[in-house]
């Protein structure tokens, strides 16, 4: 039962009043309702006990430079691309596709974004094959920074998973593998394919040929093109027609995630009338030696299909002085290919030094729906430039954008969004709400809503607010016995509630705790 745990426990509701309703129904069920696991969860959600007495959330382990590679040299050239492909036993078409991408990439320039500042990445100074062996990896949890262990405690990460997340050199994660297998068998029965991308390329080349790169073409942008040339691994999901995936596809991925490397690639296809909810990432901090992350996620929803994609991103953000941290350049895009299809992105972004990310929807099918719910929290010297693109192509398409930016410390947080209604998209509707919350007066929040409307029947609404965590609110909570750090955690969680509600329950609880942790040291 190990992996199912912290991202997956049995749990009634984040909202207290559901239990309230239960109580009203039947007081005698007390013992049934409240097992100890639930108690733990309630404690987490309601009380965010996460924040006291830990000073700042200093990340636990820097980047280790002493890396032992297999036989792959530094830098990137055609040979390396071929080697990557060969190493993975890929069919010829895949090798060719990677090479095409690589050649195209050579002609591209790294984009310069006005709101992001970071030292230039030297692409010749990177290893492009994943899984470098790190001799300095801790041999057991005893060698791991106690601060990290405390974070795990606060987030309720079960013991079995901690070694994995802390990067402890373990050969086999016995429990995890068996649980993963159980999942897999159940999914197999339904015809659902859920496997690492590298496996899908071998076992389902027809699906890969048909869909890979159709939503994010290899020419798309600098980082996407680089990813297409050298992508390491990721997940592949196919849901057959009419099937409702019976579980959140997450915990299995969580095991994989530790090994997918810096150029992840994920492809999810929901065939006609199917449904899937996919969770990426984990609230628990993960050890990673790679500074640059350039992932791609492609989603395809056929007629009447629905894909819900949730992310919690908590990569290393750099220290309090702004040194180190992950650069996270992600291309995520969903295609609502069929009529009445729906794609919903939910993201909670608290990590990384630099985030550049715009999960988008192409609303091609008539009556298709795109949604984007985002909480982006930046503290210290973090920078986030994130938002979405909603591209209305079909008739009667609808999109909804709810973005909540939270800036603390000296950080900068930008929302950048595009709503595009093409000439054929009769009766398209969009509603966007972009709120910014400031904590302290040294941080920044910026909103860049772009609109391109080519059809006069479009109804596009945009609302934006900027607010501060008010001292009166903090005092009110103080006066009821709640410490200032807890108070800020509560206010911020309340502010982001609309987005948290979109997350699967067990994830929402963790995400809330995570927010409080990420805000440590931002007040007082």
């Amino acid at each position, binding site marked *: 039962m190990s992996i199912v745990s912290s991202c997956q426990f049995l749990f009634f509701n984040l*909202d*207290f*009043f559901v*239990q*309230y309703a239960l*109580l009203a129904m039947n*007081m005698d069920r*007390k013992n049934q*309702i*409240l097992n100890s696991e639930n*108690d733990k969860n*309630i404690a987490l*959600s*309601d*009380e*965010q006990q996460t924040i006291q007495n830990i000073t700042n959330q200093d990340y636990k382990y820097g980047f280790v430079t002493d890396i032992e590679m297999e036989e792959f040299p530094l830098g990137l050239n055609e040979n390396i691309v071929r080697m990557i492909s060969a190493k993975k036993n890929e069919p010829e078409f895949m090798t060719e596709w990677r090479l095409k991408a690589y050649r195209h990439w050579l002609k591209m320039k790294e984009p310069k974004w006005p709101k992001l500042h970071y030292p230039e990445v030297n692409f010749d100074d990177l290893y492009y094959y994943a899984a470098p062996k790190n001799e300095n990896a801790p041999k057991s949890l005893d060698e791991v920074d106690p601060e990290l262990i405390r974070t795990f405690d606060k987030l309720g990460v079960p013991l079995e998973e901690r070694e994995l997340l802390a990067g402890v050199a373990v050969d086999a994660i016995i429990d995890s593998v068996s649980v993963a297998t159980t999942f897999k068998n159940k999914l197999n029965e339904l015809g659902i394919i859920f496997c690492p991308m590298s496996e899908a390329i071998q076992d389902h080349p027809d699906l890969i040929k048909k869909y890979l790169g159709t939503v994010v073409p290899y020419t798309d942008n600098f980082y996407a093109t680089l990813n297409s040339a050298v992508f390491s691994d990721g997940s592949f999901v196919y849901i057959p027609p009419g099937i409702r995936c019976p579980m959140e596809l997450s915990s299995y991925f969580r095991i994989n995630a530790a090994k997918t490397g810096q150029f992840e690639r994920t492809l999810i296809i929901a065939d006609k009338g199917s449904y899937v909810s996919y969770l990426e990432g984990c609230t628990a901090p993960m050890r990673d030696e790679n500074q640059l992350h350039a992932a791609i996620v492609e989603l395809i929803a056929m007629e009447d299909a629905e894909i819900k994609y949730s992310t919690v991103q908590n990569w290393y953000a750099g220290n309090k002085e702004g040194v180190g941290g992950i650069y996270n350049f992600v291309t995520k895009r969903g295609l609502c290919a069929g009529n009445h299809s729906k794609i919903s992105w939910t993201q909670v972004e608290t990590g990384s030094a630099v985030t550049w990310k715009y999960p988008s929807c192409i609303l091609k099918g008539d009556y298709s729906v795109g949604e984007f719910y985002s909480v982006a929290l930046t503290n210290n010297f973090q920078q986030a430039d994130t938002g979405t693109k909603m591209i209305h192509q079909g008739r009667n398409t609808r999109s909804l954008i709810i973005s909540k930016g939270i800036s603390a410390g000296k950080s900068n947080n930008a929302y950048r969004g595009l709503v595009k209604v093409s000439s054929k998209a009769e009766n398209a509707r969009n509603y966007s709400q972009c709120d910014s919350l400031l904590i302290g007066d040294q941080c920044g929040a910026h909103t860049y809503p772009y609109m391109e409307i080519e059809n006069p029947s479009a109804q596009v609404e945009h609302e934006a607010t900027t607010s501060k965590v*008010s*001292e*009166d*609110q903090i*005092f*009110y*909570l*103080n*006066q*009821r*016995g*709640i*410490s*200032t750090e*807890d108070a800020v955690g*509560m*206010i911020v*969680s*309340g*502010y*982001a*509630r*609309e987005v948290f509600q979109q997350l699967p329950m067990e994830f929402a609880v963790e995400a809330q705790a995570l927010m409080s942790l990420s805000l440590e040291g931002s007040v007082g």
Partner: protein
Amino acid sequence: MLSIKNLHVSIEGKPILRGLNLEVKPGEIHAIMGPNGSGKSTLAHVLSGREGYQIDSGSAIYKNLNLLEMAPEIRAREGIFLAFQYPIEIPGVNNTSFLKKALNEIRKHRGEEELDAIDFLSLIKKQMKLVEMNEDLLRRPVNQGFSGGEKKRNEILQMAVLNPELAILDETDSGLDIDALRIVASGVNKLRTESNAYVVITHYQRLLDHIIPDFVHVLSKGQIIKSGTKELALELEERGYDWLLEKSESPS
């Protein structure tokens, strides 16, 4: 329980409280009346630890603790409760979760076991009857979109759940309709014990018909210029403050 001696407080260099003295013993109800701007809310805020006030001199000792040096949340955990004159809205924060968190912080501080969801809910249900509050309000974010009167009832509900030793009610009666006034007052009376005390700030004698004070104080320009029993409130109702103010302005 509470002993305030010669308290001088200023805001941005401007003196607001100017030598205030007050003794409150367990079981007592003290009413504080006085013209607008005389410093009633300032006193309430200073006692509960709000920032922005400069303590120039004097002391406030509460249960042998030097109150003015304590963080606001510690004062709350030690049993001081302020029913705000203007309760603030906290969007998205569920009223019930908030109150559960508050109660458990206080219980932890006292070394008591924290209440689980079910025990807490039965407590809140019981206390809600005292203020006859609509259950709906429990499910909503703290004070968000509450009417003026609903906010005041919510303050009293919180008081009923947190069970403070010293409760300061800052114009809780303002904005309440006549029925609500009676309900809130009877709530206070039911919560009253020999060991807790109330400081009730009000402009209106009618509240004191329901919550019978042991003492009535008149605050003017940062000083208590007259103290008496409940009859003083009646007299004020009849005569206003002028006769007192004139007297206090003459050199003493």
